[in-house]
C-alpha cells in the first residue's frame, strides 16, 4: 500500500474476503488493521487517509465489486491526483 502511494498511485483499494469467511481465518481482519495503520500514516504525511480503502467481498459478488470500484473511483476523482505524482512530475 505504502509503496504504491509512494510511486504515485492516486488510491489503493484493498479487497478482502467477507468477515468471518476468510480462508486464512483472521487474515482479512488483520488486513483491515494494516489498512487502518496505513491510512493514519498517510494522514500524518499529508497525503490523506481517504486514498486507501478496504472493502470485503466474496468471489461471487461481481455486481458488488463493480459498485465498490465505482465508489472508489468517484472518491479518488473528488480528491484529485496524488500530490506526490505532481511533485515528481515537476521535478522531472
Amino acid at each position, binding site marked *: 500500500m505504502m509503496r504504491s502511494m*509512494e510511486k504515485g498511485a492516486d488510491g489503493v483499494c484493498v479487497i478482502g474476503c467477507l468477515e468471518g469467511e476468510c480462508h486464512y481465518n483472521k487474515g482479512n481482519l488483520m488486513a483491515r488493521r494494516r489498512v487502518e*495503520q496505513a491510512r493514519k*500514516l498517510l494522514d500524518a504525511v499529508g*497525503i490523506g487517509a481517504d486514498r486507501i480503502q478496504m472493502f470485503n467481498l466474496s468471489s461471487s459478488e461481481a455486481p458488488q465489486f463493480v459498485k465498490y470500484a465505482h465508489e472508489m473511483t468517484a472518491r479518488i476523482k473528488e480528491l484529485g491526483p496524488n500530490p506526490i505524482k505532481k*511533485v515528481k512530475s515537476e521535478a522531472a
Partner: protein
Amino acid sequence: MIVAEKKPIEEIIESLKGRKSILVLGCNECVTVCEAGGKKEVGVLASALRMNALNQGEDVRIDEVTLERQCDREYVEEIRDVVDQYDAVLSMACGVGVQFTAETYTDTEVLPGVNTCFMGATEERGLWTERCQGCGQCVLAVTGGICPVARCAKRLFNGPCGGSTGGKCEISKEVDCAWQLIVDRLKALDRLDEFETVFAPKDWSTDRAGGPRKVVREDVQE
C-alpha cells in the same frame, strides 16, 4: 526479549527536520519480533518519510538497511562504508542499538525511531508483557518462578500487601498481584511451607541503583 513500540510518526518527522539524507536502520532481533523496528517496519516508515518529504517539497534522500543486530560490533560495522553519506541515522533498534550505533559512528547523528519499554514476553501477537527488570540477582528459584521485582508494583519481597484484592493489584484491576501468583504457584507445587522462610535482605547492589552495570566473563574473553 527487549520490547519496544514505534514512536509516533509526527515525533520522528520533527526529530529529522532539516536533515537532507537519512538512513532508516532496522534491527532483525527483538524489535522485529515485537514488530516495532524490523525490516517491515523500516520499509513502511521510510516510505512514509519519503512521501512526507516530497509533499513538503523537500529534497531528502531516505534509504533503508536492516542489520542482524545493532548491539554487536560486527553487525554495526556493516554500514561503515555508507554511513558517511547520511546526515542522520534513524535507528529502529532498542535503546541499546541506538547507543551502540552512535558510539560506533561518532561523526553521524543517530536518532531513536522506537520507544524501548521493557524485557518481556509475547503473550499473543500484539500483546507483550513485562517479566524481568534485570536486577542482577535472580530470586525466581524461591518465588515459584514469578518475579516480585518485575511484577509487583512495590517490588515487595514480603507480599502480598494490603492492596491485593481478589488476586489483583491495587494499581489496576487488570494487573495480577504478583504475590498472589507466587502463593498460588507455591501451593500448586506443594512448596507453600517455603513461603514462611525468612530471607536475608536482597542485595540491591547489582540493581540499576549502582549506576551502569557490566558483566565480565574472563572464561569467554579473547
